């Protein structure tokens, strides 16, 4: 049984916040968010297969302010999970596990997620997709 009085892993309460800890938590959080994103994508496919009336209301929902916020966060989640997932694959090969490399790749993953999201939304706005 778990004794609730002793500090439990991962010691979130007693550890100083650091970058690699953030990237680890964000990987899980973005993964869970993308779970919802996959359900939204399935909703798109079902709406398309259900005819033009259903599809139009689906597009209307996605085009609403709330829909756009969700899609923006999903874009950020996709690119972060993608970049950090590649980081994990590199780690699985036994490389880049020292603190300096891990901190550097953390910055790269976060920067890629932000830049790629802004680029995609920039394209979306300039091509009139949004």
């Amino acid at each position, binding site marked *: 049984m778990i004794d609730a009085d002793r500090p439990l892993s991962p010691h979130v309460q007693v550890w100083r916040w650091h970058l690699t800890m953030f990237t680890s938590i964000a990987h899980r959080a973005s*993964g869970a968010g993308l779970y919802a994103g996959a359900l939204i994508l399935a909703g798109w496919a079902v709406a*398309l*297969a259900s005819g033009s009336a259903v599809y139009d209301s689906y597009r209307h929902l996605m085009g609403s302010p709330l829909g756009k916020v969700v899609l923006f966060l999903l874009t950020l989640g996709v690119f972060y999970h993608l970049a950090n997932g590649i980081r994990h694959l590199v780690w699985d090969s036994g490389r880049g596990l020292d603190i300096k490399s891990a901190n550097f790749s953390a910055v790269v993953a976060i920067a890629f997620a932000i830049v790629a999201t802004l680029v995609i939304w920039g394209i979306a706005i300039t091509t009139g997709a949004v």
Partner: protein
Amino acid sequence: MASYRTPLGRARGLGAAHHGASHWLAERVSAIALVPLVLWMVFGILRLASLDYQGAVLWVSEPLNAVLMVLLTATAYWHMHAGMRVIVEDYIHKTLTKAVLLVLNMFVSVLVGSLAIFSILKVALGGAL
């Protein structure tokens, strides 16, 4: 002294027969497959966002788009099921709650993934026009 036990009888109870890593490995292989599929889908969504119903149906009807969408859906649903399973196993310690959530995760993944794949195929095979 000769042993009269079968090879299977001797092996039983001695631990995993090299299949313990399969879940771990499947998550990585699906991750590798998802890298190009997701990048393709991001640009696909950009394209789809500016298309109306008719245009979206025609887009999905193109063989390459239909096949990549089905592969993306199957791989993504496999991967997200595996990821959510690990999250549940890590944080939920009550046996019953854990079992319920693990089964729910599998049922949701299989049901919604199947709905998505069927819908894509229906549209691609001309069932939506």
